[in-house]
């Protein structure tokens, strides 16, 4: 039978539009023709989903939201790429800006004393931003996700308490340790000693993707705790290992020389 005829026959069968004799013949055919039987099931399902107008509309909204979400993520990436291009094109402008900046810096050095360790900490400390690369084995995902959620919402006190519990449950998990340290560094008042302990643990273990970030934050803690030499040696180590933190390592090293 021609395809179109088969389709129409199946539709008539599903819609109850076959005569008694046609129905008998068709059901007889269904018992022997496996392929036809499968096609009837498929059509039945297709009819079901198209007839369910509300869910179809909802899924359409979800598909569009996904598209918007990825487009806006890509737009951010492109905007970063564009910024890079602009930066390259403005090479000479930057050279001039650096000259002006250095002149101002020299003038300031003459006029004002070097910034204190506390000021340097405030100048260089930024909360660690979570991105899509967050990975790692976690034993209690529900708790972990809740804690991450709190961290992202800036509720660092509560995030810190939850990461503390998670760390106690699983000492070997460096992701928990890293976020516990980050949360305590952002809460009020900051708990430098607890953060330091966690960063040191991550650095000693040495396998986590957060080792260099831990070193960076550890150097800032050393600075704020008045241990300039330790801060400098950690920064030099970071520099040697090629972790520049967008030039911040060098800048801070320069300021520590002063």
């Amino acid at each position, binding site marked *: 039978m021609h*395809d*179109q005829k088969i*389709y*129409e026959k199946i539709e008539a069968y599903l819609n109850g539009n076959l005569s008694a004799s046609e129905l008998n013949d068709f059901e007889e055919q269904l018992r022997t023709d496996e392929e036809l039987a*499968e096609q009837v*099931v*498929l059509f039945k*399902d*297709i*009819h*079901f*989903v*198209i*007839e369910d*107008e*509300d*869910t*179809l*509309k*909802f*899924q*359409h*909204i*979800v*598909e*569009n*939201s*996904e598209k*918007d*979400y990825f487009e806006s993520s890509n737009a951010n990436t492109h905007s970063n790429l564009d910024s890079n291009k602009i930066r390259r094109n403005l090479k000479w402008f930057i050279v001039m800006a650096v000259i002006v900046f250095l002149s101002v810096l020299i003038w300031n050095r003459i006029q004002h004393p070097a910034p204190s360790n506390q000021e340097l900490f405030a100048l260089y400390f930024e909360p660690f931003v*979570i*991105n*899509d690369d*967050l*990975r*790692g*084995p*976690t034993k209690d*995902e*529900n708790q972990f*996700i*809740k804690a*991450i*959620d709190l961290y*992202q*919402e800036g509720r660092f006190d509560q995030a810190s308490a939850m990461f503390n519990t998670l760390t106690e449950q699983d000492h070997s998990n460096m992701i928990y340790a890293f976020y516990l340290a980050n949360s305590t560094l952002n809460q009020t008042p900051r708990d430098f000693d607890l953060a330091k302990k966690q960063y040191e643990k991550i650095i000693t273990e040495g396998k986590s993707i957060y080792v260099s970030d831990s070193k960076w934050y550890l150097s800032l803690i050393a600075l704020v705790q008045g241990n300039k030499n330790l801060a400098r040696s950690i920064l030099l180590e970071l520099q040697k290992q090629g972790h520049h933190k967008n030039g911040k390592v060098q800048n801070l090293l320069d300021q520590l020389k002063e």
Partner: protein
Amino acid sequence: MSTKKLSPKEYIDGIRKGNPEIIKGIYEKYHPAIVHLVETKHGTKDDANDVFKEGLVLIYQKSQKPEFQLSNTFLTYFYAVCKNIWSNKLRKKTNQEITLDQKTLLIVKDDSPRDLDKNEKYFLYRRMFLQLGSDCQKVLEMFLRKSSMSEIMDEMGYGSISYTKKRKFLCKKKLVQLIQSHPSFKELTTP
């Protein structure tokens, strides 16, 4: 979406009504968490994207029932739903029994593997339908929502009933081809 923290009820109401702003907000807030969940359990980002959408559709359908109530935070609930969906897919992929933790089991106790399979299959069919051109979507929708061939012909501006029937057939054939050529089709329709 505003940065205001939403209550579980506000999330569910937003899903129930298909509010695009709420859906967008759920993407922004929870998509990374679901990617993390799937990627740490042998899945890819694409798997995670499907799980995320299937989870939303499943919650939408549940939210239509008057007795539906949320006794957890939205994140806890959504995470458990997605975890169950992914475990079910993984179970089929690896042919191994996957055990869920007690907390997740308690939240998703009403969703049997059979329900999840059905949800996954219908999700795929809807997705393929949405890939058809808008004319095809409209013809099939009108036909299956019991419009007559002459009504479809008038609405679509086709020249004759036989041409309308032909168009309806071609649209449906296209949809069947899209569904049957999808890599998941066989797995989803094998009992």
